[in-house]
């Protein structure tokens, strides 16, 4: 049995300024060490001041995750030396020694193989991001380490789960839901590079755990977990005794490497940060944040089931990415003649063809030129029998470039004969007229080219080659 607990660090990238100073949060395109001030550089004499907006953002997340928000909000110092830490300590929160996290408990519901499970959270807390270390090539071979303090002091929110996750797939689903919630609350854009970092505690029941650090994207988590579980299982198989240790995920080699064992664990000497005064978070404030919360993914999925008669599975998938769900509602709503079958079709097109294209091209829908109207038209053209589904599928590339359905048909009609029915008719004729070539084909598949060549000759090269090939193969099978 596998036991996994996650610590997810998320930068609140939608804040305008850093956690304790007024430097801009939007450091990614800036030259190194330009978004800095005495406070985030930790210069002698400087003092932190809490960015009040962070309290609002953290409250939003805590409310959606159903955590208990602590009414007094204050910080501790986590003391350790590292070149990325300009003060020699990180201002963080601590839930021991008289300290409290921002909020305790909470949960995220995940679905795996049609089975629902609540992943219980331990706490969420706020802390400052350290600076960024820059190497030439790999950390091992680089002749130098450069420090870029632009990231220093950016606000991180840490979500700590209980050790209740039982597989890498479950971890993946958990992160998928978390990502969705973070997007809906509007506190962060997790697509920005370096906006998320995950530490994972992994053990096989009855054995010591290891903590894998430095997993720098949600995608890598499942992979790192899989690797670590295999490593631990193999070690147990060979009769080795696992020790409690911290391991590092090497993103390039896709393996975990031992950093230090528990006996060399750092003692962080946590104690209260007295340069800051505790902030009161009263019920009135929490109530106010609650009232202004946008619709959350689970609420939206519920509504989509009612309004568009979608299945639970479809609605839950559709809402995951807010931009996709917004696109859906805009398109599906636009035509009053649309009913449950068009709603379902619209959803399928969006989740299969469009999302597939987006994944393939590693992009997101708002970066493409397709509009909800384009997809709405496509579905109408199919409904009215003007195009077949098969042809419609060949339109996706053009749709993503922002071409309307009527324009695609017009363009293709001029230069290319793509009507399946017509091509099919030609195919049948060619098969009947050329029994010898068909016979050759049964011995040598290369003869297919000769048959296709005959069709091209008949249509003077206007038939779509890929459709022709597909139809011809289908007919020849019979």
């Amino acid at each position: 049995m596998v036991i996994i607990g996650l610590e997810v660090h998320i930068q609140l990238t939608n804040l305008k300024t850093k956690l304790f100073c007024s430097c801009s949060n939007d450091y990614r395109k800036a030259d190194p060490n330009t978004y800095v001030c005495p406070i985030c550089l930790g210069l002698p004499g400087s003092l932190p001041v809490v960015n009040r907006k962070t309290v609002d953002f953290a409250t939003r997340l805590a409310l959606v995750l159903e955590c208990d928000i602590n009414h007094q909000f204050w910080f501790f110092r986590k003391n350790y030396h590292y070149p990325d830490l300009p003060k020699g300590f990180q201002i963080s929160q601590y839930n021991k020694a008289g300290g409290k996290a921002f909020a305790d408990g909470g949960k995220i519901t995940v679905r795996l193989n049609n089975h629902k499970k609540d992943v219980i959270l331990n706490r969420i807390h706020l802390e400052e991001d350290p600076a960024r270390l820059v190497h030439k090539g790999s950390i091992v071979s680089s002749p130098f380490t450069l420090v870029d303090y632009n990231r220093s002091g950016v606000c991180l929110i840490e979500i700590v789960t209980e050790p209740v996750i039982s597989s890498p797939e479950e971890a993946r689903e958990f992160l998928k839901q978390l990502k969705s919630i973070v997007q809906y609350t509007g506190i962060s854009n997790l697509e920005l590079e370096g906006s998320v970092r995950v530490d994972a505690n992994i053990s096989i029941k009855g054995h010591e755990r290891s903590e894998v650090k430095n997993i720098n994207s949600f995608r890598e988590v499942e992979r790192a977990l899989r690797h670590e579980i295999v490593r631990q299982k193999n070690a147990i198989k060979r009769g080795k005794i696992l020790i409690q240790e911290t391991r590092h995920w090497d993103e390039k080699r896709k393996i975990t490497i031992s950093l230090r064992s528990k006996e060399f664990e750092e003692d962080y000497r946590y104690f209260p940060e007295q340069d800051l005064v505790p902030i009161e978070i009263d019920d009135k404030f929490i109530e106010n944040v609650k009232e202004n919360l946008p619709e959350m993914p689970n609420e939206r999925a519920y509504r989509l089931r009612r309004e568009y008669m979608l299945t639970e599975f479809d609605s839950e998938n559709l809402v995951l990415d807010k931009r996709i769900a917004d696109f859906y509602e805009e398109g599906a709503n636009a035509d009053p003649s649309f009913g449950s079958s068009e709603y379902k079709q619209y959803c399928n097109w969006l989740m299969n063809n469009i999302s597939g294209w987006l994944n393939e091209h590693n992009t997101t829908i708002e970066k493409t030129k397709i509009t909800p109207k384009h997809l709405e038209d496509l579905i109408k053209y199919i409904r009215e029998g003007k195009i077949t589904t098969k042809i419609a599928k060949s339109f996706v590339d053009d749709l993503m470039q922002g071409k309307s359905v009527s324009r695609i048909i017009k363009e293709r009609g001029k230069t290319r004969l793509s009507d399946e029915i017509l091509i099919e008719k030609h195919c049948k004729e060619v098969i009947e007229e050329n029994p010898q070539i068909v016979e050759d084909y049964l011995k040598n598949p290369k003869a297919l080219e000769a048959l296709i060549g005959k069709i091209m000759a008949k249509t003077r090269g206007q038939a779509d080659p890929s459709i022709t090939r597909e139809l011809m193969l289908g007919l020849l099978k019979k």
Partner: protein
Amino acid sequence: MEIYNYMGYELLEKIKNKEITIQEVVQSSYDRIESTDHLLHSFVNLSKKKAVEKAKEYDLYLKKSKQTGKLYGLTFANKDLICIDGFPTTCGSKILEGFRPPYNAFVIDRLTQQGTIHVGNTNMDEFAMGGSTENSSYGPTYNPWDLSRVPGGSSGGSAAAVASGQSIFALGSDTGGSIRCPAAFCGVVGLKPTYGRVSRYGLVAFANSLDQIGPITKCVYDSALILEIISGKDPLDSTSVNNTVDKYTEEIIKPVDKKVLGIPKEFFGEGIEKGVKSSINKSIEKLESLGATTVEVSIPHLEYTIATYYLLCMCEASSNLARYDGLRYGKVSDDPSSDVYSAFSRTRGANFGPEVRRRIFLGTYALSAGYYDMFYIKALKVRSLIRNDFVEAFKKCDSLVCPTMPSTAFKVGSLIEDPLEMYTQDILTCSINLAGIPALSIPCGFDSNNLPIGFQIIGDYFDEKGILNIGYQLEQELGIYRKTPSLKTGGK
């Protein structure tokens, strides 16, 4: 009378009336530094060029306009741990050699806006850790009343500069007595305001829950004048407080006949020198003669203050001083090193002095896993007991009066080898920082060696006006505040 012997408020009057130019004021400061600082070593860095230019500019401005700052033309010396944009700030430590902060402390901005002129930064115990200014990497400062003695500390350079007329006033910082101790030893007025009264933004931290900036002046009126300027809420210091800033200069001249003075009996216990005790008692009699009444009060937990204070300040210091690793500023160990941790260690080992290293070690130890509850948490509990003692005492009286230091200035080198004995010197001052309340030290007399004695007035939270009022009336009654030091080496 020489310019450097005037009180600050008198000079302001003379500048306004055009009897003295600001250039003359600044020149007198630098002349005095030139003729005395080889004896005293109050300063570590001077800002002469800029000060002279500024004085010229201010004099020109005065010809055209009467609208000036409230401290227009006054010179001040700055303790070497309060940041001034572009000016070297070393905190008396080698580790900050070459560091020039790119910004002004809140207090510096406030003083500059009112027309003060910075003459230089003063010597101090390294990172304000010490009570004699002997722990400076730049060598000790000497007491203007007897050059063989210490000026007190850690703001020893500031107190010596004011006592000897090198500047009209100075800034100090007080964590466990670092303003009041040197003020007492050098015969000047030192005020430690309530924690949060003056912004700490730009004050290099020693123990951030105890540190507070305050003025060192020749007289109580000047102290009130400066406090009016540097007090108030600063959005950049979350611990600064938005209480009303009183018109201290108006409040202090009121009579004290209604005042009830608490005599905290534990502050008059063993270890207080006879000469000190008798001088304090004479001053209390003077206050009674002005109509004040006295009542005995008790601070029962005073005996735990040294242990509590040193524990907390060392814990905080171990964290506050963690940033000095040579990576971003300050001195780096010359020895190139293969890994970053040995580079950090070498830089810190070579450039922190012995007292600073001692406190970092002890503070790190006390915060470590397994010791935290036993030391840090316990000390916090005792701290709140001590705070409560004062709260209780202030139910019976307006202010407390007692000695500032158990003795007068001691000989250079006499305690430096005995840190514990040195720590006990703070017995009468550090409980005030633990409680976070304000206290004032004013000169009230001299011992048989003609060394000044400090009279301490402790106030309730934000009652700076109360203690300045008592201090002012006592000062006027005693009439010794114009006495100037000999700048000679005494006997014994």
